[in-house]
């Protein structure tokens, strides 16, 4: 996993002007990423009257009224809770099914292996949120419509290809020899997996679980199509967009962004391994 980091840069002869441009460019790119998020949080941390007033200040007044208004708004806490439930279920489902498949791909040579791998990669060429349309009908028939589980199943479909490919590269990075050594010392295949491979793979698996969580947390289209009463936060915000006042929108936006920021920070070490390598 660690061989993913790019090679160290070599010292280069850069002129003073060039160096200034280089750092100015970096500064601009950093501002380009951070300033819009800053604006959202300025709005979320200001009183509703400030949010709708003009002109705006570039610094929040740290008035919690907007957030309180959002928190007490009809249906918000429930939507938040639903989002968490769906995301946790997605995490469990996608890792529960994806990790065994990833392990099988990394450790065995068997007929049909390449077929399965290509199949998983191929799912990427399909717009997966569209699956929500036919599944809406299927769920009504099976009683899964408008349930947390139903939506989690669709989100698990979104996260499964990543889970398979990520755990595949994760397990491939753990030498087979370690497992073989455990076998010769009397471990069964299962024991060797639990005692040797799992501890080594666990941080990576946890990171990909967090990733599945974020995929579900952020998903809008399927959530909006499949839920009516049990809306997730994204579905709730989307469907109340044209009726809700600005402070509600921005506080809601901030509530969506904050957990994602924290999670991405938590798995930052694995970002490149997961997106970069698993995507090849």
């Amino acid at each position, binding site marked *: 996993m660690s061989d993913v980091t790019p090679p160290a840069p070599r010292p280069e002869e850069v002129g003073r002007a060039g160096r200034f441009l280089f750092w100015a460019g970096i500064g601009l*790119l950093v501002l380009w*990423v951070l300033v819009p998020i800053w604006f959202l949080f300025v709005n979320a941390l200001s009183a509703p009257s400030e949010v709708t007033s003009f002109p*705006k200040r570039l610094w929040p007044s740290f008035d919690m009224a907007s957030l309180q208004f959002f928190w007490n708004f009809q249906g918000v806490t429930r939507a938040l809770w639903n989002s968490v439930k769906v995301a946790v279920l997605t995490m469990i489902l996608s890792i529960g099914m994806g990790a065994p498949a990833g392990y099988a791909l990394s450790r065995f040579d068997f007929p049909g292996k390449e077929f399965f791998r290509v199949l998983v990669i191929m799912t990427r060429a399909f717009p997966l949120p569209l699956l929500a349309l036919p599944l809406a009908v299927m769920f009504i028939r099976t009683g899964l419509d408008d349930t947390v589980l139903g939506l989690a199943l669709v989100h698990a479909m979104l996260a499964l290809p990543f889970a398979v490919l990520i755990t595949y590269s994760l397990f491939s990075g753990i030498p087979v020899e370690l497992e073989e050594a455990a076998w010769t010392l009397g471990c069964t295949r299962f024991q060797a997996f639990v005692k040797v491979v799992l501890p080594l793979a666990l941080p990576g698996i946890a990171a990909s679980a967090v990733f599945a969580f974020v995929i579900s947390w952020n998903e809008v289209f399927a959530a909006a199509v499949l839920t009516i009463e049990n809306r997730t936060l994204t579905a709730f915000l989307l469907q109340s967009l044209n009726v809700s006042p600005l402070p509600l929108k921005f506080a809601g936006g901030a509530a969506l962004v904050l957990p994602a920021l924290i999670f991405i*920070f938590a798995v930052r070490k694995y*970002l490149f391994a997961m997106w970069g390598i698993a995507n090849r």
Partner: protein
Amino acid sequence: MPRALPYLLLLPASLFLLVFFFYPFGLVIVESMTRGGEWTTENFSRMTGHWKFSSAFWNTIWLTAIVVPVQLVMALVMASVVQKLKTGRSGLLYIFAIPLGISDLAAGLIWLAIFEQSGFLNSILHAMGVVDQPRLFLGYQSIWVIFLAVCLAEIWRATAIMMVIIVAGMGLIPKEYNEAAEVFGATRWQRFIKVTLPLLRPSLQTALILRILMAFEVFAVVVALGGTTLPVLMGETFQWQFQLQDRGVAAAYAMVILGLSVAFSLVVLRLLHVPKGARI
């Protein structure tokens, strides 16, 4: 048992793919071509006959055509800049990667905070003395501004994913290639064009396919910034499924998005094809 083990490990994921990927896609194809239980092309003629179809189609295409190339260049610049850095590389990478964890809905709300009438763009213009009164940017009178805002929000949100894939790809290119080119007197630009870019093709492939598909699925950003004023394919799909309760036409829209996604994936695969022997 040992021979069956890999298949057993793959079983849950395969079954899941079957039920939640292949079956629903079959359903959506059938649904798009039937109406009231009979085979017909009426869904498609209704779709193309609706006045919003052609603008939804071309808006989506133009959005993709503008956003993706800009992002590709930005992602390459960001990745190259990060490669050069001696210190602070991981911090900078984290900042660049932040939008990766942000939902498209949240990204739309973030840019709404900038573009709405009492928003930050108006406030800044006011402070600079460009405008006296806040201007209405996101109205139906100026659809092109909504289009521009959507472009900016999309570029802001989804450059990170391309950057991460490209950075990981650059990490896999052996240093020796670049050093050899340097020995032969290639300038930095020549090395980038003739060495780095060709070796980066597999990563570019993935990045472009993922990104183009996301662009065809653009939905929440557009809704957050312009409601239904700026029609796009995914937004129309949602409208037909939800507001107009016509699943046949929604399925027809889904087929258009699906067709575009598969077609463009194939084009990218073909354009950036890497022969098996030339891979690193």
